[in-house]
C-alpha cells in the first residue's frame, strides 16, 4: 500500500512511555494533522518519522520499504521546525539551497531552484536578504521553501504556525494547504490547534497520552467524535452525566433519547455530548424528552454567533446560535433547552474529557460538564 506506514511504533524514555503502540497510515499526497494537547506524543511521533528519534519498538515504512533504521540525512524528508531553524549565517537563497549545496549541485542550478521555490512561497526578490532582516511570516515561508528544495518524499511540519500572530496564522494555514495541494506531497503537520488542523488536513489523528483516540476527516472528527476526549478537544461540547436506561440516558431524572438508541447496559455510567450549536432554546412552557428547563445566566456575542449560558438542574448548558437570530433572550429569563436526538453522542463515563472547565454535580448519578475549550488560535 503506498504512503507512509507506522506499525506498532512505541517510544519510551526510561519508565515514561511517550508513544504507545501506534499503527497509522499516512496516505500518499494527503495532508494529515497530528492533533493533541501538549505532551500527548505527537512531536515525538513526528521526530521518529523524520529519523531524529529511534523508535523503541515497531517499524516505519515508505511505499513498502522499511526505513526504520535509515538515518535522518538519508530519508529525504523535508521538515519545518517550530522555531523554523533557519541558518543565520546564510542568506535566504543559501538557506533554501542548502540541501542542494551539500548534495554537490552546481551553483547556477541551486540559484535557479532557490528562486523557483521562493517564488512559490511568494518570497521572490528576497534571495539575498539575511535571515535577521525577515519577519516571522517571511521566515516561515523560507523554512517551507528550504524543506521543499530537495523534493522530499514526505513533508513534515512541527507546529509551524505557533510563532506567528493570529491573523498571519489564519492566512498561512490557507496558503500552506493550497501549496500542499499544488505539490501533491504527503504531508504531516503536528499541531495542538484544532482550528489549524481542521483548516488544513485531509485526515486528522487526535492523540492523547501517547495513543491516538480517533482518525478521520475533519468533519467526522467534529460531528462524530469517537470518545469524550475527542468531543471535548475538538470544538466545544455540553456534557451530561447519567445512567443508561432502556436505550436512553437518565440524567438526574431527565430522560434523553439519542438516535440511534444507546446500546449501553441499563444502569451503566454514561455521558452525553452535544455541541452548543445543536442545542436550541425556546420558551419555558415547552416540555418533553431531551429537554431541560433553566435560567439564562450569561450571554455573549462572538462576532457571527451568540452564546447563551443556561443554568439547569443538571448544571450549566451552553447554547450557540447565529447572531442574526431574531429571538432575543435576556439574563434571568426562564427557557427550555432542547437537545436533538441525532446530535447526542454517548460515551462511557470515564472522566476522559480534555479542557473541562466547569462542573456541577446535581445529585446522585447526574451532572454536566460544559467543556468550553477555546480555539487556541482565537
Amino acid at each position, binding site marked *: 500500500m503506498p504512503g507512509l506506514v507506522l506499525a506498532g511504533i512505541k517510544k519510551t524514555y526510561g519508565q515514561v512511555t511517550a508513544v504507545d503502540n501506534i499503527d497509522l497510515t499516512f496516505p500518499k499526497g494527503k495532508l494529515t494533522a497530528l492533533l493533541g494537547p501538549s505532551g500527548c506524543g505527537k512531536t515525538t511521533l513526528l521526530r521518529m518519522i*523524520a*529519523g*531524529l528519534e529511534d523508535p523503541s519498538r515497531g517499524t516505519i515504512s515508505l511505499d513498502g520499504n522499511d526505513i526504520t533504521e535509515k*538515518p*535522518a*540525512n*538519508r*530519508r*529525504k*524528508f*523535508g*521538515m519545518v*521546525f*517550530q*522555531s523554523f*531553524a*533557519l*541558518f*543565520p*549565517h546564510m542568506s535566504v537563497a543559501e538557506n533554501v539551497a*542548502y*540541501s542542494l*549545496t*551539500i*548534495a554537490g549541485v552546481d551553483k547556477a542550478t541551486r540559484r535557479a531552484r532557490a528562486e523557483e521555490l521562493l517564488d512559490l512561497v511568494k518570497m521572490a526578490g528576497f534571495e539575498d536578504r539575511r535571515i535577521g532582516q525577515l519577519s516571522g511570516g517571511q521566515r516561515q515561508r523560507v523554512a517551507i521553501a*528550504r*524543506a521543499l*528544495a*530537495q523534493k522530499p518524499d514526505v513533508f*513534515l511540519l512541527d507546529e509551524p504556525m505557533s510563532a506567528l500572530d493570529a491573523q498571519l496564522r489564519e492566512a498561512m494555514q490557507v496558503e500552506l494547504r493550497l501549496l500542499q495541494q499544488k505539490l501533491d506531497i504527503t504531508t504531516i503537520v503536528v499541531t495542538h490547534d484544532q482550528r489549524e488542523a481542521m483548516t488544513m488536513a485531509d485526515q486528522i489523528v487526535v492523540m492523547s497520552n501517547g495513543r491516538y483516540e480517533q482518525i478521520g476527516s475533519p468533519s467526522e472528527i467534529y460531528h462524530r467524535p469517537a470518545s469524550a476526549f475527542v468531543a471535548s478537544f475538538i470544538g466545544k461540547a455540553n456534557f451530561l452525566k447519567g445512567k443508561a436506561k432502556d436505550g436512553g440516558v437518565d440524567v438526574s431524572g431527565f430522560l434523553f433519547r439519542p438516535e440511534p438508541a444507546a446500546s449501553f447496559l441499563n444502569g451503566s455510567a454514561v455521558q452525553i455530548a452535544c455541541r452548543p450549536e445543536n442545542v436550541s432554546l425556546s420558551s419555558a412552557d415547552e416540555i418533553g424528552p431531551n429537554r431541560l428547563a433553566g435560567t439564562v445566566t450569561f450571554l455573549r456575542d462572538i462576532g457571527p454567533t451568540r452564546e447563551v449560558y443556561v443554568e439547569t438542574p443538571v448544571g450549566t448548558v451552553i447554547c450557540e446560535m447565529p447572531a442574526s437570530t431574531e429571538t432575543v433572550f435576556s439574563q434571568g429569563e426562564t427557557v427550555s433547552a432542547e437537545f436533538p436526538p441525532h446530535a447526542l453522542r454517548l460515551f462511557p463515563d470515564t472522566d476522559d474529557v480534555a479542557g473541562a472547565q466547569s462542573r456541577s454535580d446535581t445529585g446522585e448519578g447526574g451532572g454536566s460538564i460544559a467543556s468550553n475549550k477555546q480555539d487556541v488560535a482565537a
Partner: protein
Amino acid sequence: MSYPAAASDIQVGRADGKSASAFIKGLGLSNIVMGVITAVILFVFVAPFLLVLVVSFGEKIEGASWVWGFDFSNYIRVFVGVDWPNSVTLLYTLKLYYTLAYAVLGSLIAVGFAFPFTYFMTQGSRRSQAMWLVFVLASLSMSEVFVVMGWDILLSNRSGLPALLKAVGVTDWLKETGWLTVLRDWDLASPRNVKFKTSQLATVLTMAYLVWPYAVILLFAPLSRIDRSMIEAARTMGAGSVTVLRTIVFPAVRLPVFGSLLLLFVYLLGTYVTVTYFAEPAHQTLPVSIYESIRGATLNAPFGAAQAVILLITAGIFIGFSLLLARLAERKA
C-alpha cells in the same frame, strides 16, 4: 563690641569644616573606593611595563650591571644583530619567528582538537558532559612543569613512544619502506629510530596539550547554546555529522572560536619550560632568550627588556591584524 565678630569667625570655621566633609560626601564613598582601586591597578599593571620600556633603552656595562640611557641599540640588535651595520645577524628575529610560529600552531592544534571534541561532548547526556568537564578542569590543575615532565617521559627515546614503536616493529617497517629517511629529513628520526626529543613537533604538541583544556572550556558554553533544531534541520536536508559540523556548527560559533584562538595564542607566547625542554637551542623562542638576558648567562637587562617590548608589540600587531581581518570577514558575511 567684639562678640558678634568672634561669633562670626567661629561660624566661618564651622562652615569650612562642613564644606570639606560635604566635598567628600559629594564624591561618594563608592567613587573614592573605585578611584583607589583604579590607582592600584594602574600602578601594578602599568608601572612594571613602563619600567621595562625605560630599561630597554638603557646600556649594559660589561662586567657590571647597566645604566639608564636612551638609545635604540638594543632594539637594533634584536632585528639585525649586535655588529650591524658591519654584518647582519637574524638570530633574535628567528627567535621571534619561532615564538609566533609555535604559538600560532599550538593554539590552532588545541582549538582544532577541542572544537569537535567539545561539540560531541555537548551532544552527550548531562552526566557524561559533567564527567568530561571534571576531567578537563582536573587537567587544568597540572602545572606546565608537571605536563612537560609527563611528555618528556612519553617522548623520550629510551622509555617512551620511540621505544614502543621499536618494540612493536614499526621502526623496522619505517626503515624498510624508506620512511625513516623522510622522518630524518623532518628532524623526527635518528639513524636508528624515530625521535621526538628534541623536535619542533614535540614542542608544538606539548604547547597544544597545555592549552587544550582552556580551549574546551572556552568553547563549551557557545557550543552548548547552539540551537539543536538547526543541526536537526541540516540532518533532515541530507547533511552527515561532519557536514553539519563544517557548515552549521562552525559558522555559528566562529567568533568564539576566533576569540579562543587569540587568547590561547597570547598565552602560548610566554611558554618557557616546554620550549627549553623540547626545542633545540637554534629553534628556541624569545621568552627563553629574555630570561637568559635578565637572569641567565648573558645578564643584559636592557637587551632582555628590548626583546620583551618587541614581543609585546608584535603580539599586539598580530592581534590587531587578526581582529581587523575578523571584522572584514563579518562585514563581508
